[in-house]
């Protein structure tokens, strides 16, 4: 079915966007020396040649590897967190005149094949933001503690903080059109930016859709401490503007 869609009008527009460098893939990466090369070349293989890796103050050879693979690399001199890295990428994309940006994790958990259909969703004009979800099809193998405990808990907290119901809250796969790119300014440096983005989608009345993506777990994720940090960051950001 997907193959048939590629011949459609939006697909031609997609080819145009890629060609004219209006489509930016933003890849935040922190100490991903082992994975970043594979991620970047995977994107290039799928025709995305405008890859911006934001090296968030890595101690290893992340930026060299990314550069070697052909990506444009922006380097944070010190580590500031994934939210900060994404916003740096977004600022760059805005400056360069991007029409569409894709958030794509640097650890290799995503599949580049999921990008094209997501961009088609944006091009069809039905939505401003596409949010990836690993729970909409059966491709992702999710550890049961995540599926049964962590994801439902995150979903509940997200609903409280943002008022939006999502199947998969902390998914780093997103596609934003120019409007969303300008409206969604990420101020939460840490991992709470996921919730912040959803909140801003709602605040600015942006249209969004969830879209199935495949997630391959190479490592478990953030652990309990990371989760608590997110809740703490959210509470602080409620108090301090």
């Amino acid at each position, binding site marked *: 079915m997907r193959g048939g869609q590629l011949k459609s009008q939006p697909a031609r527009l997609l080819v145009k966007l890629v060609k004219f460098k209006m489509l930016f893939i933003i890849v935040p990466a922190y100490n991903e020396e082992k994975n970043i090369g594979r991620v970047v070349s995977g994107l290039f293989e799928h025709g995305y040649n405008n890859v911006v890796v934001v090296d968030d103050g890595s101690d290893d050879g992340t930026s060299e590897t990314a550069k070697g693979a052909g990506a*444009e690399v*922006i380097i944070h001199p010190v580590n500031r967190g994934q939210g*900060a890295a994404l916003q740096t990428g977004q600022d760059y994309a805005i*400056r360069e005149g991007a029409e569409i940006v894709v958030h794509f994790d640097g650890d290799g958990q995503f599949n580049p094949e999921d990008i094209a259909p997501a961009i088609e969703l944006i091009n069809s004009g039905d939505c401003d933001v596409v949010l990836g979800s690993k729970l909409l099809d059966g491709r992702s193998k999710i550890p049961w503690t995540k599926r049964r405990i962590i994801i439902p808990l995150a979903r509940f907290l997200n609903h409280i903080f943002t008022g939006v119901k999502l199947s998969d809250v902390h998914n780093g796969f997103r596609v934003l059109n120019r409007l969303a790119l300008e409206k969604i300014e990420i101020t939460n440096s840490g991992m709470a930016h996921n919730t912040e983005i959803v909140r801003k989608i709602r605040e600015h009345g942006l249209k969004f859709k969830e879209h199935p993506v495949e997630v391959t777990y190479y490592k478990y994720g953030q652990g309990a401490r990371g989760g608590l940090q997110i809740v703490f960051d959210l509470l602080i950001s409620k108090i*301090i503007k």
Partner: protein
Amino acid sequence: MLIQYLLVLIFLYGLVRSITRFRHKEFSKTNLVVWIILWLVGIVVVLIPDVTFSIARVFGVGRGADLVVYLSLAVLFLVVFRLVSKTEKMERDITKLTRKIALEKVTKK
């Protein structure tokens, strides 16, 4: 009582530190005055606990020591809140700086 000596020593240390910090110009004059008053009040309260008794009565608290604990807690909460706010502000400023430096280094294509 031993606790009195211990507390007085701690407060005296604080007093001395405040003065040295002022001498090294790390402290403003108002800061110095406020801290000296605080340390002195601490020392007086520890050495002559009865003074708090009459003040406590005015506030409607039974014992002087209780009044001190209540007030200290309130002040501590305020200080912590201020610190957290300041740190958060600093974090955001550092992020802004980092972003600026990072983006300046990327040459326009």
